[in-house]
């Protein structure tokens, strides 16, 4: 490979891909992929010419119309925001769940096929189980989550005389810990199963592609120095030193019509 190309590993690897894929996979089937890669490599070049400062916050007039609710009530949304922020808080390293849009992510997921367990085996009968046998409740995720959020509120009102969103962060932690440890008995809500679901969804909301509503501006990835979805590391995989890259999201690979 020519040395002068190594400055732009992305573009070179895409070219190499274009060169081979036509013969490799028969030209026809791979059309969509090639199109996308040409598109994104053009975009990348654009970016290189006028580098944007990634730290610059989006102007406040830039409304995100995707940030609205598909499933939660307003209360449930605010509880989710508060609880997920305790699970993944803002600190000196960067934003927490709230700023990353995790509550919107969770709301959108609950309205999706995942929220109704559409690809899980949900046929009866349901029996008590051993831990080793995994999830055996008839609750669908959206039901478990909504009931659990209401229970968080009820529990904190019982304990602190205030709803979950109004108690101090340390108190919120204590409530969440009680759920995590399954110490809460409320309306038959399996507290630990609810906590695990909320915990997993929070992590997913921090780190999934921004297309799903969380990981806003790829800030979750940036804190971790995760480069997102690059097309190729062919030219850098052997490098001894750590290479920081501006992350790419799926949006960057889309060829808009």
């Amino acid at each position, binding site marked *: 490979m020519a040395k002068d190309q190594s400055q732009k590993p992305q573009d070179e690897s895409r070219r190499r891909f274009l060169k*081979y894929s036509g013969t490799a*996979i028969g030209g026809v089937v791979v059309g969509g*992929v090639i199109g996308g890669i040409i598109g994104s490599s053009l975009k990348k070049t654009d970016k290189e010419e006028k580098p944007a400062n990634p730290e610059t916050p989006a102007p406040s007039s830039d409304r995100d119309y995707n940030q609205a609710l598909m499933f939660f009530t307003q209360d449930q949304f605010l509880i989710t925001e508060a609880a997920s922020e305790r699970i993944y808080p803002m600190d000196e390293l960067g934003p927490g769940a709230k700023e990353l849009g995790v509550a919107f992510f969770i709301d959108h997921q609950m309205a999706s096929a995942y929220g109704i367990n559409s690809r899980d085996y949900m046929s009866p009968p349901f029996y008590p189980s051993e831990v080793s046998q995994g999830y055996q409740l008839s609750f669908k995720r959206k039901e478990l989550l909504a009931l659990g959020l209401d229970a968080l509120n009820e529990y904190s009102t019982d304990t602190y005389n205030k709803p979950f969103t109004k108690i101090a962060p340390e108190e919120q932690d204590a409530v969440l810990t009680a759920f995590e440890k399954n110490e809460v008995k409320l309306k038959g809500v399996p507290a630990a199963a609810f906590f695990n679901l909320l915990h997993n969804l929070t992590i997913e909301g921090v780190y999934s592609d921004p297309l799903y509503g969380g990981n806003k501006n790829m800030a979750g990835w940036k804190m971790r120095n995760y480069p997102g979805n690059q097309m190729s590391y062919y030219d850098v995989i052997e490098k001894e030193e750590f290479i920081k890259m501006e992350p790419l999201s799926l949006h960057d690979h889309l060829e808009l019509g």
Partner: protein
Amino acid sequence: MANKLPKVNVVIVGMGWVGGIIAAELTKAGHNVVGLERGKSRGTQDYYHVHDELRYATRYELMQDLSKETITFRNTEKIRALPMRTYGSFLMGDGLGGAGVHWNGQYYRFLPYDFEIYTKTVERYGKSKIPEGMTLRDWGITYGELEPYFVKYEQMAGISGDKELPEHVSQMSKPFPTGPMKQTPGMKLFTESAKKLGYHPYNIPSANLSEAYTNPDGIERAACQYCGYCERFGCEYGSKADPVVTVLPVALQTGKFELRTFSNVTEIIHDGKKATGIKYVNVPTGEEYMQPADVVILAGYVFTNVRLLLVSKLGQPYDPKSDTGSVGRNYAYQVNGASTAAFYEDREFNMAMGAGALGSCIDDFNGDNFDHSSLNFLHGANIRFTQAGLRPIQYQPTPAGTPKWGKSFKQATLHNANRVLSIAGQGACMPYRHHYLDLDPEYKDALGIPLIRMTFDFEQQDIELVKFIARKTKEIADGMGATTTQMNDVIKQYNIVPYQSTHNTGGTIMGSDPKTSVVNNYLQMWDADNVFICGASNFPHNGGYNPTGVVGALAYRTAEGVGKYLQKGGSLV
């Protein structure tokens, strides 16, 4: 009533690696083949937006839809089996190419010891070495006999690896067709440390191509880009060998192959001695079809292979109480869990980069490559460092004792995201009389057909193996210049929740005794000579390796057997 279709030479159930290889070989030889796949068609064009961890890795886009069909599981016969309602321990393939589309591509041949494990164990240690209840079996085929078929798979897939492997690993009649993958700093640290300890490290042979390659069928594929979205994803470059970009186009080009997707096979039609065909349901319409054929090949992975035999009442179901029968016997898995994490305070590694089969390994403690006289277990593990590309949802590295959430969790995971190298053992799994597959008495699939029931747990053998292998991983990790290392050497009860490995084996095992095995060494069924069954379901035990190298070789062997059978009929052994 099922619609009866015109008879064909050969019908294959399942279009993964096994179905694809057999379809290509038989159609090249001039036979007419119908391939039935319950899932959809797919190709590289589907992977335009594949670098999506949520969709593919944690929502299992490419895997079997469990709402339609799953398995049930219990640790012992004393408890009630319950359905695997959501994914965890292993991930079943679905759709064209099967799990061969979303595998890693780590390629191993298994050791000569594996194929003659009973004889070689007794020879070296005596019969008393084999504990009560462990149903160790020779495979009915030797490494030497299978060797030419490994070569076929390697040439077809373009396996990338070292020119030579250590002597105690593999004697190869032909070197791998492409050179080894690139080496990362982590691989180098592993290799140097293992060498210093006197071990014999080598690059993991890889089905992700190290360079552009044209195979003997004329299929050209591009080099791997180390994109870090390999396991659980399809490869948009066609670099990862999968059936859709290798064998299936070859079969289609012959004009002798008819591929029918959305065709879910529900029964083998037979008269007790021979199969006359199979029954399948067209998934979108629900219509039933009857496909008569001279030869029926089961290539639907472990669970389907066993289930179709049991549901169709073909072969002798295994009964663990009387230790009789064969179908469902010797279910085994993979014994993972021995590992050491090396934490580096002074440097970071590019852990987001990687390829499914990128890594280095040793086999000094695999198979019978070391003396077991004073040890309480048999076999061992391939010990390795892999760099498959670590993604942020699935990977939350924390030192022991870190809370599971909150500020210190966040800070530990951010700090360690690129500072940990993990050395792990992939342990062999021995068969036991009380580990098996049968039909669940209660739970059914979406069509009303009983689900497969798995009865399996880890044994003392596995606990001891993990303890021993973990110490070896620590020894190697300690020589890799890390700030600290943390070892895990404990496994407990088998738990179906965390992902471990999609290396399920057994159930239709091969062998030379028709009483205890289902198929002979051409993977031809003892009880019905025009039925061939191929896949990891043929393994009498599972080795300390990933299975697909052996599965691929057995598929080439099956194709040869079917060819012979079509010419002369009868039993091939």
